[in-house]
């Protein structure tokens, strides 16, 4: 087919396309001109019979033919489709609830524990674990607890018939870690602990702690303060600061307590911090040289810090949970809020 004929045929096709009144008419036009047995394949097949000079022009026109009709058909298809609304449009209620199984939730104690693991991992701390059923040696004696210290009492500690006890702190894991390796040691020990406390809004006989231990050649109280300050910001927010107060623990010397500035009011005083601007979070200190001697470290060349904090307490402060018992009541309406 000569170029002129192609142009003519194109105009005819375009006219028919413009005239189509339904999508079916339009489809008929497409089949007639662009279909497998339509006009365009014929044109393409005929190209080889033309003189070289005509062939290239005809080729160009054939491309024009295909492109212009294609564009027209697409445009008309949209037009007919939207006005007729018969083929492509669907109507459904997109406000219906999504229907893919929802996410569950992590327990707030797990959320705080995992977050603490993440934060301390950045400072090079690795998780260490130990048994809940402990020996007196690991839980008290190796931690330099005097044998008449009240915490050893039947009144405060769950002693078992085997002579073992339910650990009152995760500190025995520190002892086990130091017994099994030489310095440096840098661990955190999240885990469950037990004390014979009557359950009330702030006490639970079964609770969780995260302790940390960093032992090396020259570790100082300033390192401890820096570590806790870093943790406070990461856990509670960038504006939260720390302060230390002297305290007493048998296994550290000096011993301190660590307060975080209130993440809610920023230190000006509110209900959460009981108007003090500060929230007591951690007990800490420099590992007592007598503890190092128990595990066979040289207290002259080794120093280290240890800290411990209650997971429940952090969760309660962070999420505004008013009663520790909520954490063990497993009410799905409470739990599923922690996504």
């Amino acid at each position, binding site marked *: 087919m000569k170029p002129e004929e192609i142009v003519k045929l194109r105009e005819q096709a375009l006219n028919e396309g413009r005239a189509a009144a339904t999508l079916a008419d339009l489809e008929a036009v497409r089949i007639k001109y662009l279909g497998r047995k339509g006009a365009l394949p014929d044109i393409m097949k005929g190209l080889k019979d033309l003189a070289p000079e005509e062939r290239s022009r005809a080729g160009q026109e054939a491309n024009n033919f295909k492109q212009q009709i294609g564009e027209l058909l697409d445009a008309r298809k949209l037009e007919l489709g939207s006005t007729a609304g018969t083929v492509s449009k669907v109507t459904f209620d997109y406000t219906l609830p999504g*229907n893919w*199984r929802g*996410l*569950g*939730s992590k*327990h707030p*104690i*797990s959320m705080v524990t*995992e977050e603490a*693991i993440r934060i301390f*991992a*950045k400072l*090079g701390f*690795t998780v260490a*674990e130990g048994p*809940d*059923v402990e020996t007196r040696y690991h839980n008290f004696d190796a931690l330099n607890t005097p044998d*008449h*210290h*009240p915490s050893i009492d039947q009144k405060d500690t*769950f*002693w*078992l*018939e*085997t002579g073992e006890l*339910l650990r009152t702190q995760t500190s025995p894991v520190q002892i086990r870690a130091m017994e099994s390796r030489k310095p*440096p040691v*840098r*661990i955190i020990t999240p885990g469950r602990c*037990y004390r014979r*406390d009557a*359950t009330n809004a702030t006490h639970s*006989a079964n609770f969780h702690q995260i302790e940390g231990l*960093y032992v090396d050649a*020259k*570790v100082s*109280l*300033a*390192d401890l*303060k*820096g*570590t806790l*300050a870093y943790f406070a910001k990461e856990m509670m927010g960038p504006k939260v600061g*720390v*302060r230390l*107060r*002297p*305290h*007493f623990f048998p296994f550290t*010397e*000096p*011993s301190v307590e660590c307060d975080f500035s209130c993440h809610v009011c920023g230190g000006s005083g509110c209900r959460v911090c009981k108007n003090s601007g500060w929230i007591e979070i951690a007990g800490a200190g*420099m590992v*007592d040289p007598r503890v190092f001697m128990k595990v066979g470290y040289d207290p002259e060349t080794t*120093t280290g810090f240890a800290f411990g904090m209650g997971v429940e307490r952090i969760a309660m402060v962070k999420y505004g949970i008013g009663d520790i018992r909520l954490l*063990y009541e*497993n*009410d*799905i309406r409470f*739990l599923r809020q922690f996504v």
Partner: protein
Amino acid sequence: MKVPISWLKEYVEFDASPDELAKRFTFSGIEVEGIENGAPSYDGVVVGEVLSIEKHPGADRLLICRVNDGAGEQKVVCGAHNFAVGDKAPFARVGAVLPNGLKISERKVRGELSCGMLCAEDELQISEDHSGIMLLDRSLAVGTPFSKAVKTEEIVLELEVTWNRPDCLCIIGIARELAALFGTKLKFPSVEFPEKGEQIEKLAKVTVEDSVGCPRYTARVISGVKTGASPVWMQKRLMLSGVRPISNIVDITNYVMLECGQPLHAFDYSLLANHEIVVRRAKLGETMATLDGIERNITPEMLLIADAARPIALAGVMGGAGSEIQDNTGTVLLESAAFDPRSIRQTSSKLGFTTESSYRFERSVDIRGVDWASRRAASLIVQYCGGTAAAGSIDVFPKKLQERNIACRFQRVNDLLGVSVPAGRVVSIFESLQIPVVKLDDSSCTIAAPSFRPDLMIEADLIEEVARINGLDQIPAVPPPASVIPDADDSRTRAIIALRTSLVGLGLSETMNYSFVSERLLNIFSPQDVGRRVALPNPVSADYAIMRDSLIPQMVEWLGRNLFHQIAEVSFFEIGKVFLKGPDGKIREEDRLSIGLLGKVGRSSLDSRRGLKRDEMFLWAKGIVEALHRAQHLNGVESAPCRASYFEEGGCVSISVGGQQCGIMGLVAEPIRKEWRMTEPVAVVELALDPLLSRFAAAPALKPAPVYPSIARDVAIIVAKEITHEDILHVIRRSAPGELTETKLFDIFTGDAIGVGRKSLAYSLVYCDLNRTLTDEDANRYHNAIKDALKNELKAEIREN
């Protein structure tokens, strides 16, 4: 411990508001738990104006006054004469209770009605003065509450003293801290008194049989005392400190204890058999009644104070009835002693109570201060109770104290604290705390630990003193560099976090349960497991008496409790420990995972009203278990039918990985469900954690995704009902070529058309060759081989359509 600020000022000078003082204490190691006004409230005591004064018709020394108390005119009978009409004075209305406990009521005095009282200073515990009524500024408005009219405030700090600082359990100890903090001098009260009586040795005898339990015992005797009320200032201080005044001698012993931390005991000398004191362990079968009138069971390890005949006190804990100070006591034997903290703690914990005295002894008292306290009390007794002190004292103190010298290197201070403290500052801190420095050179100093500081044992203890007095706010916050610890391995922790995250992704919510449970709950599930359970000898309550040996009981309990809260759908998991007692009595711990499903948790909410079938519930749980194993890179997970008392028969399987059993899952048996009124099927899973985590760190073995097209063929078979899906899979896998890449069950059907005892299953099988395009002929060949195997091995009927 309650510390009145006004009392502190007797021993140390300082200028600070109560808030500032509290801050200084808190940041030097003594936590201030409260700042309170300890003064009496003076409710009902107001400023009254004297309107008229007349003589009492029936008594010469009494007056009858009319007083305007702001609310009206009151008639009162008054014994004082130091005032005139127009004077203003504190007036206690009817109903008021004065600080000494006197309740004001209407009463007749020599026939005249008296409605209220004009008060003297001693009656209000303002001073000792009882010479007349207290006169107030005439400009004060009538009816003004007395507490507003006169500044009566007495600030009391509530201090929490840590266990290692018994020296701070007294006013002087606290004052010593203040002297160090404010750089001022500590002043001690006088302990001088005349010793005009007989030589003590002629009056009394002391034998200490147990010098370990009682390393020092002193006795003084004061004769000719008169018992009565103690001075008002002393009563006031006792009350501000939370100690009830009793009588002068007892009050003095309490006062000196509060002042210097040394508990004292006063015996009525005349009631001591043979005037003898014996410090000894209790004898088998001995009993005694304590001061509070309670008969105590005493056991042989308890340390006693006895006279020649019988026990007269539980040493350091409480005095006995029958030897205590009486109203007519004339001669006092004053005990001041040091007891072994362990012994005192044992006695008080065995008897189940502590006293002001035992509290201090079990933390240890200053053994060198024992005699000072005795002298202080004796001087007060002589001064306020009259009497004559015997000459000298008995002091049984056989083992002299060893000096404890401790060196402190200045460089070590700086290294441990991470801050530079000048040597001069270190030394001055020690001296300000009355810790004598006995040796000093450029690099270190040596101190002699005072006997009131049992906590100072090693260099680190001294560094703590420097840290707390110098101020912890001086310590910089240095984040330590995170140097690598090469062999640290946290893969187990990461596996658990990944597991938890998978479970949350699968729609489950995490629960947390106590490690101890009630026996009743465990017995609902498996009464036969009693032998492996670990019981707590001293549980907090019966609800928490047994260590759990399975996570399942609490899981089911909480599903049930949520149902009580009208929650229809719950999917829970818990990761926790169980505790199992072995045949050898040893306790083994195991980490486990439990999963519990309640309601139509696997269905769309638009399809939630249809009844829940058992197999549907079971398969949801199974789906979760399969997904978890996949997430932890575990293949070869198998299930096998099993029995458990708490699962429905037939609805329970054991789960194993690589041939090793690692858990159980099933449908909770109906009688157990009924405990919590659960009527529909409930599924529970319990898996041991370690097998589940065992391959977490393994990289999954990858297979290339096929590039050549695959061919799918369906096969529908009719088999006997007993044939399981897994039976069919086994046959298909055995008979299929390597080109079979997928087998998917897409339909199950039973019904009349199939025939009784039979079922129809339809599978879609996908064939693919990794190296070429399969032909239809290939696929047909593979497919026919499988069909033949199904026919031969399972007597399957192939449904051709």
